[in-house]
C-alpha cells in the first residue's frame, strides 16, 4: 500500500475518531458530572443524604462500568436505533460510547468531589448558601483541577473504546488498524495508525495535565499545621 493510498484513509479515520470521541466526551461530561456529584451528595453525611438513591445510582454505575464495551454496544442497539435511527455509522457509535463513558466519568467525578474539604461546604452553609450554591460555588470550582484530569482520562479511554466502534462501521483509527493492519497484513499502515494514536493521546494527556496543573498551582494548600496547646485550667 502506498502513502497516497493510505493518506485519505488515515485522514478520514482521524476525523471519524475525533468526531466520535468529541461528541461522546461531551455527552459523558454533561451526564457524568451531575451523576458523580449526586453520588457524593446522597451519600451518608451528604447534603442530600438518601442512602437508597445512593445505592441505586451506585449499582447502576457499577454494572455499566463492568460491561465490556463491545457487549454494551450490542445491548444498546435498540436504544441506539431509537435515538439515531440507525445502528450503523459514526452517529450510531456515539450512543454506546457516551453511555459507556458516563458511569466511568461519574466515578472519577465522585472521587474528585469527595476530595473537597468539608470545611468549605460548611463555610458556605454558614453564609446561608443552599445545596445548589454549594455545588456551584464550592464543589465544582474547588475540584476543577481533578475534574480536568478526569476528563483527560475519559477521553483517552474513549479513544480506546472507539477502536471497537469499527464493528458497527463507524470507522476511526482503531478500525483502520484492525481491518487493514491486522486482517490484511498491512503492517506499515498499522504502525502508522499506532503512531498517530500515540501522538494524539500524548497531546491530549499533556494538554489536560497542563490545564490541571496551572489551575492547581494557585490553589496549592499551604496552611500552617495546627498548633495545639493544652489547656492548663481544666487539667
Amino acid at each position, binding site marked *: 500500500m502506498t502513502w497516497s493510498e493510505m493518506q485519505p484513509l488515515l485522514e478520514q479515520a482521524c476525523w471519524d475518531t475525533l468526531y466520535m470521541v468529541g461528541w461522546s466526551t461531551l455527552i459523558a461530561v454533561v451526564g457524568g458530572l451531575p451523576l458523580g456529584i449526586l453520588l457524593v451528595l446522597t451519600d451518608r453525611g451528604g*447534603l*442530600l*443524604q438518601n442512602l437508597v438513591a445512593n445505592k441505586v445510582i451506585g449499582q447502576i454505575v457499577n454494572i455499566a462500568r463492568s460491561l465490556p464495551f463491545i457487549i454494551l454496544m450490542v445491548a444498546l442497539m435498540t436504544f441506539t436505533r431509537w435515538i439515531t435511527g440507525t445502528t450503523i455509522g459514526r452517529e450510531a457509535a456515539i450512543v454506546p460510547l457516551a453511555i459507556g463513558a458516563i458511569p466511568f466519568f461519574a466515578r472519577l467525578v465522585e472521587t474528585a468531589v469527595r476530595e473537597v*474539604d468539608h*470545611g*468549605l461546604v*460548611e*463555610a*458556605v*452553609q*454558614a*453564609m*446561608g*448558601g*443552599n*445545596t445548589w*450554591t454549594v455545588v456551584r*460555588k*464550592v464543589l465544582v*470550582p*474547588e475540584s*476543577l483541577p481533578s475534574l480536568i484530569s478526569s476528563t483527560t482520562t475519559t477521553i483517552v479511554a474513549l479513544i480506546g473504546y472507539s477502536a471497537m466502534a469499527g464493528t458497527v462501521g463507524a470507522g476511526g483509527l482503531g478500525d483502520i488498524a484492525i481491518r487493514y493492519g491486522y486482517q490484511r497484513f498491512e503492517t506499515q499502515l498499522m504502525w502508522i495508525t499506532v503512531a498517530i494514536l500515540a501522538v494524539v493521546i500524548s497531546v491530549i494527556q499533556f494538554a489536560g495535565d497542563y490545564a490541571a496543573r496551572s*489551575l492547581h498551582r*494557585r*490553589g*496549592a*494548600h*499551604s*496552611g*500552617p*499545621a*495546627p*498548633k*495545639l*496547646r*493544652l*489547656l*492548663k*485550667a*481544666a*487539667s
Partner: protein
Amino acid sequence: MPLCPGTPTPAHSTVTETHVITTTDLTKVYRSRGREVTALDGVDLHVREGEVYGVIGQSGAGKSSLIRCVNLLERPTSGTVTVAGQDLTALAGRGPRAGKELRQARSRIGMVFQHFNLLSSRTVQDNVELPLEILGKSGTERSRKALELLDLVGLADKAKAYPAQLSGGQKQRVGIARALAGDPKVLLSDEATSALDPETTRSILALLRDLNRQLGLTVLLITHEMDVVKSVCDSAALMENGRIVEAGTVSELLATPGSELAAALFPLDGEASGEDRTVVDVTFQGESATQPVISQLARTYNIDISILGAAIDTVGGLQVGRMRIELPGRYEDNVVPIGFLREKGLQVDVPGREAVLAKEGAK
C-alpha cells in the same frame, strides 16, 4: 477606616444588657452504630450584646458542638437557640436541610474557622464577595463592599492574591472580612487562632477586639487557650463534659472564690513551707489595689508574712493583682487576719480550704 491591629484601643465598652445569643437547655446527642455520645448536656448560654464571650474547654468538652449549634450547622437534639431575638431552632424545620428562613438568618451571623476555609480557586476579593453573591448583591456593590472590608482588616493590597499565597494570619484576616460581608450583628469564632503562632494570634485577637469596639459586634469565640480569654474576653464560660461549669464576666469570675477559670486566668504558684503554715491568695481589683494592706496586716497583728508569689496583669481590660502569701500558724489560728483582709474589700482564697467549705456549704 483602616484599623491598626496591635495598638490598644481605649477600653470603652459596647456591652449592653440585652442578650443577643441565648441557648436554653441545649442538648446534642450523637448516635453512631448504636452508641450514644452526649456532646452537649443542657447548656444555657447568655451572651450580651456587644461583648466578647469566650467558651473555653478541652477537646471533647463540647464547645465546638456548642458554637456549631448556634447557627444550626449542627442540629441540637433538644433545647432552643435564639440569636438577635430570632428563635433559630423554630426555623430549622425537620430534616437535615436548611430552609430559606434559616439560611437568611445564617447570612446575618458571621463565622470564622480554625482552618480558615477559604476557597482556593478564588482570589481574596472573590472569597470576600462570596457571601454577597449568596445574598444576591450586584457586582459593583460586591466589589465595593469587599474592598472596604479588606481595607478594614488591613489586606487591601492582597485583593487579587490567591489564599495559597497568604500567611496563616492573612488568611484568617480574609476569613474575618468574609464573615463581616453580610453586616452581621454576631460573629462566631470556632478556634480562629488555634492554627496560628502566638504573635499572629495576638494580632488576630486585637483585630477581633477592634471590630467588637468599632462595629459593636458581638463575638462568641471558643478556644482551648486561656490566653485568648485573658486578652479579649469580657465574659467567659468553662465547659466540661458537655456542661458549662462556670460562667460570668471576667470580674465576676475573679471575684468568685475557688473559681477554676479565675485561677487559670491568673495562676499563682508556691507551696506552704511547713505544716503549721497557712497559704492565702489575695486578689486585688480596682480600688483595693492601691491600699498598703499587707504591711497593715503585719503591723496590726504583729505577724511575719512571706510572699510566695505575686503578679499584676490586665484581664479582660481590667487591672488585677494577685498575691499568694504565707501566714504563720494553721488556718484556725489565722481566722482573724483573714477576716481583716476580707474587711478591706479584698478577695481572699485559702487554697485547699474551698473544697472543705464547699462540702460544708452543700450540707
